[in-house]
């Protein structure tokens, strides 16, 4: 060991390293036994404490904040339900909230319907050595600038955009199609495009896990391709579909960029209102109450969805 070229350097820097190396790596906390548990906890603690301080504590702060009141430039810190009363009773917030949930649900359905055949194709009809390339190909658009992608959908769907331009050029339509820009449909199309890679991945992973001999067994027992798909492949892919649904449904509720760029006046969603309250309207406590309400609704719907799915699986035995 002494003859190792790194040994000399190591001797020299050993003292200065000693202080920080405890934090950096798994030497454990001095005085504690270097047990599995201590090592594991010491290593995971930086990321855990970061998530605790920057996520759990701030979300707790937002909850407290939502019970305060904004009085012009000052905050009234007496506990009140007024913000929630306003958030749940005013028609404008109710309309935006319901529209947001409807849009998120529509986007979830569209992405899963779009994603399933792709995941199925890559899992069952692509050679194993080619699969990583296919997955890369599907995920690349996700890594490009989010703003630019959304803006380009505005160009594609616009009145003299790609879709209308080509359809009119081919003589299929005479007037530009107006149902695909500055309304809810445009929001659903654009969001589905943005989230579809996230839906493909969990379904793909679930399909990859299916034991291929089960499919052969089904075939040997006389099942046709359609029956085999419905009775073997689809039930086994269900966990992936559920994961995909949650991964798409939950974050979609928080998007305010897409509705702003392609939604027009009737396509705005609850996240736009939250952004407005925090920024221009300067009523952060109301914004906080709206954000917490939206999160609660999404959480309840998600839990209900998972519960129903579990029960469905149990019923099938």
């Amino acid at each position, binding site marked *: 060991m002494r003859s190792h070229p790194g040994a000399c350097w190591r001797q020299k820097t050993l003292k200065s390293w000693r202080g920080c190396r405890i934090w950096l790596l798994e030497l454990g906390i001095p005085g504690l036994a270097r047990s599995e548990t201590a090592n594991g906890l010491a290593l995971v603690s930086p990321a855990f404490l970061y998530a605790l301080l*920057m996520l759990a504590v701030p979300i707790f702060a937002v909850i407290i904040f939502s019970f305060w009141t904004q009085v012009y430039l000052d905050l009234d810190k007496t506990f009140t339900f007024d913000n929630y009363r306003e958030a749940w009773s005013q028609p404008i917030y109710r309309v935006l909230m319901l529209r947001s949930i409807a849009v998120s649900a529509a986007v979830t359905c569209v992405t899963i319907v779009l994603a399933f055949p792709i995941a199925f194709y890559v899992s069952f009809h692509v050679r194993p050595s080619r699969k990583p390339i296919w997955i890369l190909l599907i995920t690349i658009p996700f890594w490009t600038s*989010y703003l630019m*992608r959304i803006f380009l959908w505005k160009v594609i769907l616009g009145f003299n955009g790609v879709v209308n331009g080509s359809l009119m050029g081919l003589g299929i339509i005479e007037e530009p199609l107006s149902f695909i820009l500055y309304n809810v449909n445009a929001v659903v199309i654009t969001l589905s495009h943005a989230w579809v890679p996230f839906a493909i991945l969990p379904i793909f992973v679930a399909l990859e896990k299916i034991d291929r001999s089960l499919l052969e067994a089904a075939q040997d027992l006389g099942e046709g391709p359609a029956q085999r798909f419905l009775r073997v492949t689809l039930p086994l892919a269900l966990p992936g579909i559920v994961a995909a649904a949650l991964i798409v449904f939950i974050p979609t*509720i928080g998007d305010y960029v897409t509705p702003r760029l392609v939604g027009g006046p009737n396509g705005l969603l609850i996240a736009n209102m939250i952004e407005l309250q925090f920024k221009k309207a300067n009523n952060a406590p109301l914004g906080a109450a709206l954000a917490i309400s939206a999160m609660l609704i999404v959480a309840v719907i998600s839990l209900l969805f998972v519960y129903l799915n579990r029960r469905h699986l149990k019923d099938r035995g």
Partner: protein
Amino acid sequence: MTFRKLSWLAFYTAMFLVFLYAPVILLPIFAFNDSKIVAFPLRGFTLDWFRLLLEQDQLHSSLRNSLIVAVATSLISTTLGICAARAAARYRFPVKRGIMGLIMVPLVLPEIIVGVSLLVVILQLGMDLSLWSIVLGHVLICTPFSLIILTTAFSNLDRSLEESAFDLGGDRWSTFRLISLPLVMPGVISSLLMTFTISLDEFIIAFFLAGTETTLPVYIWGQLRFPGKLPSIMALGTIMLAVSLVLLIFAAYFRRRGERRAGAVAAGGVF
């Protein structure tokens, strides 16, 4: 019958890829189009929009800000990711699933919640919004990605290699530095590149947490309101697209190399 069904599926997949890549393909087309209006029909080829980018000072300062934020974010989140991934792959400890779950939560949380909650805390503490408040938010959403990449890297690590290093007289630190770290290095580089890319393109959190100094996506958001600026924004988007692509391809390359080096069968691609 089987052949026909397969060809339908292949046809659908091809159409899907067109749908998926439509914006990415259109971006460079409009960046080189010689017209102030971003729409068809195309007018001709020009490099003017790229030349315009060189003259905008505000763009240059936001580019510098974005680079600062992205470098800081990738370094911090990858460091957190290395520690947590090592813990996840190697050790057992109490409430492991809960702890790992909390670290992964930002992956499924709406980004507006991350932005709003950090904004509330920073303003209540009486601190000013700056580039560092953006870094705080970005580290939060980047750490899960780093953790996913590095957990694969550390899980593929053959434990007997570390044990042999111990047997040959190495201590824990030298074993980690000389044996484990070089073996997971491709994963570390891949994580640095991915988190850098995410931070560079992130808008929703940056918009909430930006003070007077803006990042590149926040600058772009401001410019989208002015129709006259759109073609040069397309040019800027094209450059960002190219940079993201190069970084991603490198990230994927390092990841696969790491998997091969650790002796595992390559699978899964970026995720």
